[in-house]
């Protein structure tokens, strides 16, 4: 195609479709060749394609929380490595947390893509994925680091492939610094293969349409997405709203950590300012600015363009403020391994928005993911196992709907839980119960979704750990809805040493018991305004007890019917 061509809207869409396919093909390649289940089962990866200006033009997010996470990383990585030094066949690695927007176990690879005969890249492909081990102070998860150097080997944007061949010196450093070099090398290869798939597809697209058409199309794609987002934002109320919340602790002391956001919607777009949050803390819960941006991108997307593919235009209306040294702008050497406060911060932004548009927002869900893991030795094979699970939570009620029951936290809602039969097969945990916990959802005109209760009996000795950063402050409700109880884990249940914990690591012995409770969601609106027929349905299904129906909802249930007169008396009084 000639340079003066003004592309029509069909051709631009065709090029966009190819860019989407390129990212999807990178995803298939990664999933197909990855070694560790955290990549192919938990989808702990994020795939992006950038143009010459390092603006996102296509992506294939795995985890919802990796939405746009590469955007900050690649800018810093290319700046560090220098675009002018790059040659075809180069691939770079980066996991410096403050640039990479994640903990040190997430390794990002990026590669420049060159058109024939040009000496500057016309695009970049980029993949982050969770690695099994890079030599942090503890295997598996680090819950109590106090600086970056306890969290593993660090790369700032280092050439790991040159002219298409691996750089042996760097590979050796990784191999000799990992507790699990086999899987790590396997995942590195998978990421390299997927990065190259992207390079090949981009070259094919360029070959088919030519550089001028490619450049024009990516420009038009961004403009279209920005227009779409701004049009949707214009339908939202304008104003500035603030909200605060509390993170359990930093993993070192028991002190709660306050977080705060000020959200503005105006003609500029959406601004989220975290300046009012706690300064950085000693423990590993500090958030790099790129992840803070990702949290806000998630919110903007959910409000304006949930079903659209992403590109830089999708996020142009967003501004994120967090001063260096704040909890939400971690700087060297702050510890960043256990970034659970990000879950709370996501819902914190909604909490602020809810003040200006309660009818568009849902009340808080259970508020965080309660994860647990058992580490032990298989009595037959004598090999070590570490099997984990995330407990579901109830989601929050909203103007239109009850919150859904027992579903993974929205920050990781694509991830599936671990089946009971798998847990019992692989570990020394036997489940005595795993059921929805009646009355666990916050009451309301639209009630919160129900949480769960799991009773665990240990049938082998081993180690048990749990993570949640919301086991103290109850999830926030809207419009007078009720707040549910929080996530909680009870260890040594039924003994004198019984203890309620949040984030915890402890040895367990045969016969010990633990109880895990994933919180319900918060309610929306007054419970006394809930349709008595809906309350009756909940009672018949055992989600709500007859007592709670009477006390919270002021609905009298007799047998399997609403006692209308008694209900009127209860509600009228």
């Amino acid at each position: 195609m000639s340079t003066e061509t003004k592309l029509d809207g069909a051709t631009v869409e065709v090029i966009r479709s190819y860019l989407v396919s390129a990212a999807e093909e990178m995803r298939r390649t990664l999933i197909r060749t990855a070694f560790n289940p955290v990549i192919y089962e938990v989808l702990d990866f994020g795939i992006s394609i950038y143009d010459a200006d390092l603006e996102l033009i296509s992506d294939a997010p795995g985890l919802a929380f990796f939405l746009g996470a590469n955007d900050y990383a690649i800018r810093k990585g290319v700046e560090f490595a220098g675009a002018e030094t790059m040659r075809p066949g180069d691939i770079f690695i980066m996991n410096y947390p403050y640039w990479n927007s994640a903990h040190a176990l997430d390794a990002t690879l990026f590669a420049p893509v060159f058109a024939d005969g040009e000496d500057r890249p016309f695009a970049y492909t980029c993949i982050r994925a969770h690695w099994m081990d890079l030599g942090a102070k503890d295997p598996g998860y680090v819950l109590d680091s106090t600086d970056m150097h306890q969290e593993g080997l660090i790369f700032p944007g280092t050439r790991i492939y040159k002219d298409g061949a691996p750089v042996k010196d760097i590979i050796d450093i990784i191999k000799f610094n990992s507790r699990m070099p086999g899987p790590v090398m396997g995942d590195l290869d998978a990421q390299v293969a997927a990065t190259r798939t992207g390079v090949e597809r981009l070259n094919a697209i360029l070959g088919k349409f030519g550089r001028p058409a490619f450049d024009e199309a990516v420009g038009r794609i961004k403009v279209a997405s920005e227009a779409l987002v701004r049009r949707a934002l214009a339908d939202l109320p304008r104003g500035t709203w603030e909200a605060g919340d509390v993170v359990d602790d930093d993993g070192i002391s028991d002190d709660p950590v306050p977080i705060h956001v000020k959200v503005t919607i105006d003609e500029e777009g959406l601004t989220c300012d975290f300046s009012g949050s706690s300064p950085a803390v000693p423990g590993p819960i500090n958030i790099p600015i790129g992840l803070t941006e990702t949290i806000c991108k998630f919110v903007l997307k959910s409000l304006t363009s949930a079903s659209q593919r992403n590109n830089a235009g999708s996020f142009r209306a967003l501004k994120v403020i967090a001063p260096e040294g704040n909890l939400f702008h971690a700087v060297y050497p702050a510890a960043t391994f256990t970034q659970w406060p990000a879950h709370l911060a996501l819902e914190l932004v909604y909490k602020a928005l809810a003040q200006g548009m309660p009818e568009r927002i849902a009340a808080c869900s259970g508020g965080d993911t309660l994860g647990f893991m058992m580490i032990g030795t298989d009595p037959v094979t004598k090999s070590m196992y570490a099997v984990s699970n995330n407990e579901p939570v109830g989601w929050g009620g909203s103007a239109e709907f009850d919150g859904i029951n027992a579903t993974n936290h929205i920050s990781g809602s694509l991830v599936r839980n671990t089946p009971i039969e798998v847990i019992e097969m692989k570990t020394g945990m036997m489940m005595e119960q795993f059921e929805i916990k009646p009355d666990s959802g916050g009451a309301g005109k639209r009630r919160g979704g129900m949480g769960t209760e799991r009773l665990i009996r240990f049938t082998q000795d081993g180690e048990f750990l749990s993570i949640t950063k919301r086991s103290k402050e109850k999830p926030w409700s809207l419009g007078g809805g009720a707040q549910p109880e929080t996530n909680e884990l009870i260890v040594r249940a039924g003994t004198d040493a019984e203890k309620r914990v949040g984030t915890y690591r402890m040895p367990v012995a045969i016969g010990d018991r633990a109880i895990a409770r994933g919180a319900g969601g918060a309610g929306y609106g007054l419970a006394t305004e809930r349709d008595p027929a809906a309350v009756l349905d909940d009672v018949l299904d055992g989600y709500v007890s007859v007592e709670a129906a009477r006390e919270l909802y002021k609905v009298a249930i007799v047998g399997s019917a609403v006692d209308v007169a008694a209900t009127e008396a209860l509600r009228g009084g």
Partner: protein
Amino acid sequence: MKRFRVAVDIGGTFVDSILFDSETGTTRLAKASTTPDEPVRGVLAALDRLGVSLNDTELFVHGTTLGLNAVIERRGVETGIITNAGFRDVFEIGRADVPAASMYDYRYQREASIVKRRHRFGVGGRIDAHGNEVEPLDEAAVLDAAGKLVEAGIRSVAICFLHSYRNPVHEARAAEVIREAYPQLAVSASSAITREYREYERTATAVVDAYINPIFNDYVGRLENGLVENGFCGKLLIMRSAGGAMTAQTARQAPIYTVLSGPAGGLIGAGQLAKAIGRDRVLTLDYGGTSLDAAVIEDGEPLVMHEAPLADLPALIPIFDIRCIGAGGGSIAWVQEGLLQVGPQSAGSQPGPIAYGRGGNEPTTTDAALILGFLDPSTFLGGTVDLDVPAARQGMQDRVAGPLGIDIDRAAAGIFDVLVARTAGAIREITVERGRDPRDFSMLAFGGAGPLIAPLIAREVMNAELIVPQNPAVFSAWGMLMSDIVTDVALTQLRLLEPEAQGPVEEAFATLIEDARAQLEGQSGTQTERRFLRLVECRYAGQEHALEIELPEGEDLASLRARFDDLHRERYGHAIAAPVQIVTLRVRASAVMPKPTLPIVPEATGPASDAQIGAREAFCFARRERTPFAVYDRKLLGAGHTFDGPAIVEEGTTTTVIHSDQTVAVDPHGHLIVRRKSA
């Protein structure tokens, strides 16, 4: 042996029937309209149009998506669940995940559960992960729960206990006591359908089976009556979702096996065709009114999955790996922020494309095909539908061409450009996922509109060739004629693949084969040839990806390990030194049925131009402009004919459109083999 064999496939619009005459070796086709309110009526009408006596019919093979539709449209019966005490919410909680399309929706709502919590009961009794009984089954509690369900008006119950894949004794006993006490209740025990682990998936499998059981039984009962009334006294077979057929009697016991029985016919046909003409790797493309589906066939065998989503529910049943890669001919084209969009909204068949004149006012891909000259308005769907071309052009102008500032042809072509770009991408993904290059595949196009769009897709993915079979619109029904009686049995057996495992594995296979033989016996009599395929699903210890490998009788496990490594390398790009774990043993058993061979068409006697019946203007995607296309009548083409595009081949219900950079050869079976012209 009676003279005729008949197959009938119920589609969304038409019931397709096909007859094979074993005396002449010929086939005959007939169609009737689908009658959703009373499906049997449409089936009998289609049979009637075949014009032969059912007295002379040996075998009636049937495919229907009745069960799947009941799940999608939530038209099953109210269902209850009996499970372990403390676990009544396994079905509701599921895997606690949200579909990818809703991952940013903080107000996400699940579809209403097909089993209300009040109809889910936990009873005492527990089996552990090793299959040992930890607590005996509380039979009184089972009876009590069943009694409450009956009292609540429930007609069907699913039973699923933890670890029943390992030890089904509690489930079997619970089913037995319920059937004795409440014979009116349909009972689906999870371990009777699948012996695979994962409690939610197994529960959902039993629930779906229970949910559709009464509806399916009712339908098959009516069909049997209708056939008998018309003199049929042969064998009624229902297609399975993973190929092969089963007797109606067997299907009625676990109707979940039939959920995908219509599309399965197409893949069996494709597999047989691929074998007959010697193609190792085939990619099928089935394009109808509602969806564009693709599947991979290697060495004549369509890929089988052992878990598939049925609407929002997982089912642990063997099922062909058919991927929906796009919307059908009803996809709506629109403009958003200056860019052309196709779908995801669809006009379906009601109101349908603008050209149908049924009130549709949004341009669809069918309207685009009409505008570009690919469809002949006078013969569309055998002349049963009048197409309004001016209305389609006006709609295209108003909704697409105008807003984009381009002419109508360019707009209509743009719709195909977008569709083809997406489809090509989806096809690349399917093949790349298996470690294959899409260029190594032959493409096989069927379904009403498959041959219309497949040549465009073939140009894009540069396939070696595109095959258009005979009667592509009724290809699924034809495939049903090619089917054997098949049964699959499986057992999850987690153990390391090591020499000591040989004994237990052989023992388990012996039991499975005995089960399978008994199941075939009941269905086919003893006279037919039997085949038993022994498959081992294994994986590297600690990984989740499992691969299925055949273990022929007499082969030891050491060689299995080597083949596992090879296959893993091919599929996932690497092999590792870790121990290999056996997950599940499977036996696929078939009773081989006599089937028609591919027809041989007469040799061409004159030039291909003899088969040309006219010419019409249409849009050529190679030239990017309107150009005259030679129009051929497929009936007049003979083996050995070759001709170049631009060309259109008409055959009643289907149109094949060949562009100027493509060429066609007719093979001895009358297949159109479309290739790119050599430069």
